């Protein structure tokens, strides 16, 4: 009887999660359509939609450039980056059983920047720069994990401290690379890459990250129930027949690839990977199978909304990290406060 009702409860949660995801999806789609219709270029909302569906007349080519060349790539970019950052944050938090981590706290974002900067110094191609960014991110997260292992201290605090150390070191390395770079060509390229911005997104850039991002997120979704098992504890997971190190490493690789891809088109965007998973947990609970899709959609919705505001609200566009920080920091404080209430 009890088992029966537990199963029913599980079912109910699943249905709830599905409803929430559908609601988020509809909201995301609507926001994307609205975002497509607004901007500083004077264009009627209906004309924007007409351009999108190829129904507009061809006489004003600039309309096409604005809708298909500026707004659409930018909307897609903010959606996929938001989704990537939130799902990598969720994965990191799940795998380290630590709600305080995300890609920027583990040094991944800074590591990716260092990798890319080195590739630019070696005058590598765009694909090689992305590969180096990924390897840099991986190296950073590896080093971050190494410190607690060397100290034989697996506490959450140690991991966070280690992330601060590696992140700081990576920032200095990046500073040094920028110092020795040729200011005319390399430095400009590094700064441009590191700053990143949704305002310069092109369809080529989008195409170059869609595949790695898609593969990595599919893998993460496939791994999600194993991450759940990991969160039970290592010995329990092993008893259940899970290859713990393999799952861990594979998850880290996927999450790092997601972060590096996002950094490679939009620069370092903080807070999304940290707060969105927490929000997801409030909505659908802690299980990663349910949490990942919700975080994914939530991150996409969040970043799309923030980016739309930054590009329309002020006369001169402001960097997106300003707004994510202004919203993220107090939100995180509020979340911590709320979770403490729940724990109490």
């Amino acid at each position: 009887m009890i088992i029966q009702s537990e199963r029913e409860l599980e079912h109910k949660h699943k249905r709830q999660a599905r409803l929430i995801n559908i609601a988020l999806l509809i909201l995301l789609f609507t926001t994307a359509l609205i975002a497509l219709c607004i901007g500083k270029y004077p264009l009627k909302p209906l004309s924007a939609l007409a351009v999108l569906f190829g129904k507009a007349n061809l006489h004003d080519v600039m309309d096409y450039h604005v809708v298909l060349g500026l707004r659409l790539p930018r909307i897609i970019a903010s959606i996929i980056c938001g989704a990537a950052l939130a799902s990598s944050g969720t994965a990191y938090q799940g795998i380290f059983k630590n709600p305080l981590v995300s890609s920027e706290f583990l040094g991944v974002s800074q590591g990716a920047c260092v990798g890319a900067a080195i590739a630019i110094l070696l005058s590598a191609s765009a694909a090689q720069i992305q590969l180096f960014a990924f390897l840099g991110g991986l190296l950073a997260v590896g080093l971050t994990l190494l410190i607690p292992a060397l100290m034989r201290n697996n506490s959450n605090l140690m991991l966070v401290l280690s992330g601060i150390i590696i992140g700081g070191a990576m920032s200095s390395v990046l500073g040094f690379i920028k110092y020795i770079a040729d200011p005319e060509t390399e430095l400009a390229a590094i700064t441009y890459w590191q700053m990143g911005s949704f305002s310069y997104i092109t369809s080529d850039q989008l195409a170059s990250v869609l595949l790695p991002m898609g593969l990595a997120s599919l893998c993460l979704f496939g791994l999600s129930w194993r991450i759940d098992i990991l969160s039970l504890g290592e010995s329990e997971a092993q008893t259940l027949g899970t290859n713990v190190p393999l799952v861990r490493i594979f998850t880290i690789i996927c999450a790092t690839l997601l972060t590096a891809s996002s950094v490679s088109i939009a620069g370092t965007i903080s807070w999304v990977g940290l707060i969105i998973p927490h929000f997801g947990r409030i909505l659908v609970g802690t299980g990663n199978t349910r949490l990942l899709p919700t975080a994914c959609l939530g991150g996409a919705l969040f970043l799309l909304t923030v980016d739309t505001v930054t590009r329309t609200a002020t006369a001169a566009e402001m960097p997106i990290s300003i707004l994510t920080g202004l919203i993220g920091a107090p939100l995180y404080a509020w979340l911590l406060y709320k979770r403490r209430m729940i724990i109490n």
Partner: protein
Amino acid sequence: MLRKTIAALLLVLLVFTTACAKIPQQTVAGTVKTVTDQAGRQVKLPDDVETVAMMFSIPTSLLLALGVGDRLVAVGATWGIQTLIEPSLETIGTVGRGQLDMESLAAYNPDVFLHKASDPATLEVVAKLGIPALGLTTESTAEVLEAITVLGEVFNRQARAAELVEYYHSKMELANRIVAQIPADERKTAIVMGSEIGKVAGGNMLQSFMIETAGGINCAQDVESQQAWPVVGTEKIFAWNPDFIFCTNGSASEYEAADLLHDPTWQNMNAVKNNRVLLVPTDKDSWEYPSLSTCLGFLWMLCQMYPEYYSEADFLQEVDLFYQTAYGMTFNLEFLGYRT
């Protein structure tokens, strides 16, 4: 079920991404000309370039000198005499400061977008929008003069551009003639200090060229740095002990010439003892910022370092002549912020 949904979503995104690439090609209206910019790119432009937008502000003075200031529709910032030369700059729009606002640029849809040649990524993004993007570089005098020539082609003002370049060269020759009379043992040493004490103009910078054209010896000529305004530190400057310290006239400067003159630790420096810590004029039009005005900059340095060979009175005649030649109007010295 979940994976299928995600896969479907990815597919939708992919379709939209390919849609982004399918933008009809914009054709430049009217007759077309091709200009090679300072990034070495071939830029197709309409024969009559009537509107121009840019995010950085260095070319503004060059456009004003060419007489096409009224074609500007958006700039990063304007200052000083620029709005007096071209009143429409007073209310001019912007396409972003530091970060380019693509939609604003699209809304202006200018005939040409001018940008730093050192930022090819932005040039390419703008070109993709169907707006011709022209790269300029103004790090040295030679490059400034080349920029004028390129802009002359863009605006069909080749003759005017040649006239300005020739004028600048004639002032360089004037300086060279005077400097040739100065014996080697009378040559003065000097530095141009940047926005912070300890930052100097290295040998590859415009300001170093100004010292040398004025017959001075730049103590920092061997400082080779990738960075503009390399930091050499106060000790190095003490070791050089230059005869003249010229301070750059940036509003961002963290110190004033008077600070050095009154600082006890600087009292043994030749330049301080002889009251030769000087701010490069002027407030309303910098004479050491990449522009034609640098010819006033080196002539001014010349009259400061070697008054017995070139008097300040002789120099001051050049000021009116310069502004008349470049902008067709003159400004009184007090207004410019020149301190005699």
